[in-house]
């Protein structure tokens, strides 16, 4: 039942978006939203333009098919509902992220996708590997997220507004500001971690521990493109500088080359696809580095192409895994007859991936070459990287289709049947879309690509795309690509063996480095906990008092001499008595050898203090002091026999260090109080309370009026603390009691 309802949600969203498409095509920017934190200039505003229309359509459209697919793939799974919840949570996060018109709102949704991704990768939570991968992905993307937050806040401060639409108008001013470089670095860190660029790429292949619908949706079609979206979104503001151009071009090119090589090494179909996703992400980053309209159009087209074929191929691999129980390249073959529909979907998606006409992939590839050659800075590097990546895509596409579907039937002997409709519907439709969009190229160019390119570049652009470009350099490069791809396909076994050999010589992978990093942090945490949380009360107190003494001493020394006015006030007999009691208590406590005597002496000291409060006009404080003193004595008395032996107290030995500490703290506090008394007393606050207490709070006891009326929120916080602390302590004691009984 749920499997029927859930896909309706994204489908309705997609339909609503399509309904608005004509207005967006006309160049309108639709915005709506609410105030959120007006005092900070933050609003929950959203908007729709050409760029996020494309992303939102992909998120909701692919989401609908993935939801259908997941219903069948995880059919009968005990946590299917939970899965749907996470999936929809992710969808909300992703849609919010691309539609947000406010930097802070964007960030909140950005983090929501990170959390949803964590929950989905670790969905199979009884599997240690899945848990590790989930945590790794969470930590890497969250570290990037924090950098992004810092970058967005700097951007907002520099621009004077968190409104994205306003910021997008301020490109030149921002590029000229001194904070441009920090903003760029922080934003790029956020985007690169999210979109798994080198050197943060290793979390993405590990994320394949997630169920296949998740891999198809989050880790190929949508979430990993959030970083790409961010780069495209902020293109008008941050691009057009050498720093942007070089960073994106080089990081993108490095990612795609490394990932393409690593992809060939894999024998697990799903991992192979994961690495080709990295290739795609690297390609997109590389092209977004430029500011010419052709490379940008190539990037936008490739986003569309890639989402169609990659989601489709992931689902195909999921179907193979679901029906045969394996996705190892070596143990699959000849499935063409048993699974004809799946085969058609796989073939169509692979043809688009390899870039054969008339699929959209072909147009994407031609545009890439045209764009690469149009790049002003490094056409050779970009074109070379693009040819290399595409040749390997051709090889991988061939491997994905020929190996599992042709040749001798494997796994042999088992009865393998075609998957149910719900499983093959998604991949088939998405693969077919790659074909339809390829044939209807001008329409796609006009309705989706051109508005997106216009939004990215921040200036009106016209994008013309057609299937046949004539005999030109891009076509020649295509031929080279196919030839190279076929060669790589034919030589796949020796290449794979050579790569395995080569990679064994590499001392460290990013994954292993990450483990070392995490272990290091754990060790650091354990070390500092042992150092600071040793559990010895006396040492804690010594450290606290030493810190107080040092802080007071520093302030006193820095402020220089204190003019202490030693005019001895006239004290009455009772005041002298209270003072004597306090002093006697302190001295007895210091000299006592038995704990009980020390505690009683402290009690006397407390009473003396309470008397002083009473004589000098603070009856509330005096009463409280007296009561706390009483209860404290009772509590100590009940615990006395369980305290550790007072070694230092029992041995009649002078402790110079403790004495020094006590005298330093005492002298420091006394001098500070004397110093404070010298400064004129500012009576603004107390005058306010004195005059306002009766007319506003109907009370004559100022202390209590402050507690329960003027500062009631503070008091509420305090009783909450008292309550929590008491419950926690009582629970701990009760727990010990239980253990004692057993």
């Amino acid at each position, binding site marked *: 039942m749920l499997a029927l309802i859930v896909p309706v949600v994204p489908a309705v969203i997609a339909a609503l978006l399509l309904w608005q498409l004509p207005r967006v095509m006309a160049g309108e920017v639709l915005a709506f939203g609410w105030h959120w934190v007006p005092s900070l200039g933050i609003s929950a505003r959203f908007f729709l333009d050409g760029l996020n229309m494309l992303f939102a359509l992909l998120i909701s459209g692919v989401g609908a098919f993935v939801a259908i697919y997941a219903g069948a793939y995880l059919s009968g799974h005990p946590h299917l509902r939970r899965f749907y919840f996470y999936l929809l949570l992710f969808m909300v996060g992703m849609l919010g992220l691309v539609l947000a018109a406010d930097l802070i709102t964007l960030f909140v949704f950005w983090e929501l996708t990170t959390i949803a991704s964590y929950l989905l990768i670790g969905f199979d939570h009884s599997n240690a590997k899945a848990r590790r991968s989930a945590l790794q992905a969470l930590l890497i993307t969250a570290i990037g997220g924090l950098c992004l937050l810092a970058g967005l806040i700097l951007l907002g401060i520099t621009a004077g507004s968190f409104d994205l639409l306003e910021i997008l108008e301020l490109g030149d001013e921002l590029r000229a500001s001194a904070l441009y470089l920090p903003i760029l670095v922080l934003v790029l860190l956020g985007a690169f971690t999210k979109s798994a660029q080198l050197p943060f790429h290793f979390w993405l292949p590990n994320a394949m521990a997630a169920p296949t619908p998740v891999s198809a949706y989050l880790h190929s079609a949508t979430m990993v493109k959030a970083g790409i979206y961010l780069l495209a979104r902020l293109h008008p503001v941050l691009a057009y500088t050498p720093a942007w151009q070089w960073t994106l071009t080089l990081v993108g090119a490095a990612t795609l080359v490394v990932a393409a090589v690593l992809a060939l090494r894999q024998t697990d179909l799903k991992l192979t696809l994961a690495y080709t996703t990295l290739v795609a992400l690297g390609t997109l980053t590389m092209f977004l580095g430029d500011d010419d309209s052709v490379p940008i159009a190539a990037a936008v087209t490739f986003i569309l192409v890639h989402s169609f074929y990659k989601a489709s191929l992931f689902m195909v691999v999921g179907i193979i895994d679901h029906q045969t129980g394996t996705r190892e390249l070596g143990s699959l073959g000849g499935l063409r007859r048993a699974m004809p529909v799946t085969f058609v979907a796989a073939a169509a998606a692979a043809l688009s991936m390899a870039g054969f006409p008339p699929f959209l992939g072909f147009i994407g590839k031609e545009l890439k070459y045209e764009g690469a050659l149009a790049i002003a800075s490094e056409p050779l590097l970009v074109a070379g990287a693009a040819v290399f990546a595409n040749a390997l895509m051709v090889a991988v596409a061939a491997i994905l289709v020929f190996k599992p579907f042709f040749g001798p039937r494997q796994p042999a002997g088992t009865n393998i049947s075609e998957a149910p409709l719900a499983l093959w519907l998604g991949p088939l439709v998405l693969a077919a879309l790659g074909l339809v969009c390829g044939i209807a190229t001008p329409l796609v160019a006009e309705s989706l690509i051109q508005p997106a390119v216009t939004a990215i570049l921040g200036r009106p652009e016209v994008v013309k795309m057609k299937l046949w470009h004539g005999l030109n350099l891009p076509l020649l490069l295509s031929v080279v690509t196919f030839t190279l791809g076929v060669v790589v396909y034919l030589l796949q076994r020796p290449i794979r063996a050579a790569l395995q050999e080569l990679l064994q010589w590499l001392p460290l992978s990013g994954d292993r480095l990450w483990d070392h990093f995490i272990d290091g942090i754990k060790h650091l945490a354990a070390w500092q906990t042992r150092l600071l949380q040793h559990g010895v009360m006396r040492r804690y107190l010594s450290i606290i008092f030493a810190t107080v003494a040092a802080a007071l001493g520093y302030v006193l020394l820095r402020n220089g001499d204190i003019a202490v006015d030693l005019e001895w006030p006239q004290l009455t007999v009772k005041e002298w008595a209270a003072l004597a009691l306090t002093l006697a208590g302190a001295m007895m406590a210091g000299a006592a050898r038995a704990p009980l005597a020390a505690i009683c002496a402290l009690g006397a000291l407390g009473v003396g203090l309470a008397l002083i409060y009473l004589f000098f006009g603070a*009856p*509330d404080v005096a*009463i*409280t002091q007296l*009561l*706390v003193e*009483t*209860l404290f004595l*009772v*509590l100590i008395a*009940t*615990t006395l*026999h*369980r305290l550790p032996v007072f070694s230092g107290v029992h041995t009649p030995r002078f402790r110079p260090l403790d004495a020094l500490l006590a005298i330093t703290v005492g002298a420091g506090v006394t001098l500070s109080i004397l110093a404070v008394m010298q400064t004129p007393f500012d009576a603004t606050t107390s005058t306010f309370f004195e005059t306002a207490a009766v007319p506003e*709070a*109907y*009370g*004559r*006891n100022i*202390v*209590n*009026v402050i*507690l*329960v*009326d003027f500062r*009631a*929120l503070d*008091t*509420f916080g305090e*009783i*909450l603390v*008292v*309550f929590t*602390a*008491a*419950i926690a*302590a*009582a629970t701990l*004691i*009760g727990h*010990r*009691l239980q253990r*004692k009984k057993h």
Partner: protein
Amino acid sequence: MNSVILQTATRALVALILLFSVYMLLRGHNYPGGGFIGGLIAAAGFTLFAMAWGTAAARRALRIEPGRLAALGVLLAGLAGAVAALLGEAPFTGQWLFLGGAEGDKGLPVSTILIFDIGVYLSVVGAVLALVFALEEDA
């Protein structure tokens, strides 16, 4: 502590102490006292009772789990603060009602402030007793 003198004296004393604690609570707005002080006095009374008659008897006399009493107090204080928010003012603003007010006589003041103070009183009694009882039982 099994002392007949203490036990006999406690019976009378605890009643007086509790009465006194309520007196301190109610006079707090105009004279020294208030929820915190009243709560401490009441807690001292029950502690005395526990010392004389044992914690089991003291728990029975309290009739409600001290932790729950503390939670009830926090809840009451929070609700008293929420009244103002519901009436559209800043939370924890005092709301006053003068019952039977007439010319020259403002009548009997009733306020959310008092309810808040009772919440403080209950949470202090509950928190202190939760600790005292646990410690005495552990002894």
